[in-house]
């Protein structure tokens, strides 16, 4: 069991926090199973075709990559410290992301679902609001707008 857990943690550490190519949701999920986890929660943040009444053509994400990678790793570590997680991984796209594609994925695994759900919300909330990543919306009318994702903003968990 110890060897098993060690290898899974190593796999978790090897997943890059940023990707300039499409995220492989199925492959990431395949790495998130754990013999001690009865719950796996997967959040996929996907590009929708409208925002605040405007038709979205695509999104483009810019990042300060070194800091974003470090911050996402810290957020994952903080989640591990707060909840008894077996696996926690997150990956965010950079560059142009088409409608329906995944912009960010967070997967949490734990013995029971409560911790996995809570930790997943915590991780995505902090990534959206703290990591050095920015979204630019490109609309079908040719205009663009930076940021503007924050209609949610419940208090930080």
């Amino acid at each position, binding site marked *: 069991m110890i060897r098993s857990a060690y290898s899974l943690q190593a796999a978790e550490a090897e997943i890059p926090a940023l990707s300039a190519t499409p995220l492989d949701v199925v492959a990431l999920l395949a790495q998130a199973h754990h013999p001690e986890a009865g719950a796996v929660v997967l959040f996929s*943040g996907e590009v929708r075709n409208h925002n605040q009444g405007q038709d979205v053509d695509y999104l483009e*994400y*810019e*990042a*300060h990559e*070194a*800091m*974003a990678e*470090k911050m996402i790793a810290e957020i994952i570590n903080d989640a591990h410290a707060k909840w008894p997680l077996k696996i926690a991984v997150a990956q*965010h796209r950079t560059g142009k992301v088409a409608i329906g594609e995944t*912009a*960010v994925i967070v997967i949490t695994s734990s013995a029971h679902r409560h911790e996995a759900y809570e930790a997943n919300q915590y991780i*995505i909330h902090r*990534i*959206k*609001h*703290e*990591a*050095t*990543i*920015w*979204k*630019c919306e490109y609309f079908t009318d040719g205009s663009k707008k*930076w*940021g*503007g*994702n*924050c209609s949610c903003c419940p208090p930080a968990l």
Partner: protein
Amino acid sequence: MKIQVFAVLKDHFDKEFELSRDIKDIASLKAYLSNQNTGAEGILQISRFAVHNEFVDLDYAIKPNDTICIFPPSSGG
């Protein structure tokens, strides 16, 4: 010092530029850039600053060879 700006700040400044003026700290830099480009004042007020991949406070003493990154509020996800 070298300045790098990100996201919406690129609509107001070059992505990367040199400043040879004597600006002592981040607060002074923020004030200087706001004066240079009043349209960016609001976004600069809510931006974060980093040097050597670490966030720095307004009282950080700028060194001549520093590269200072200016980050508008994050909008990932």
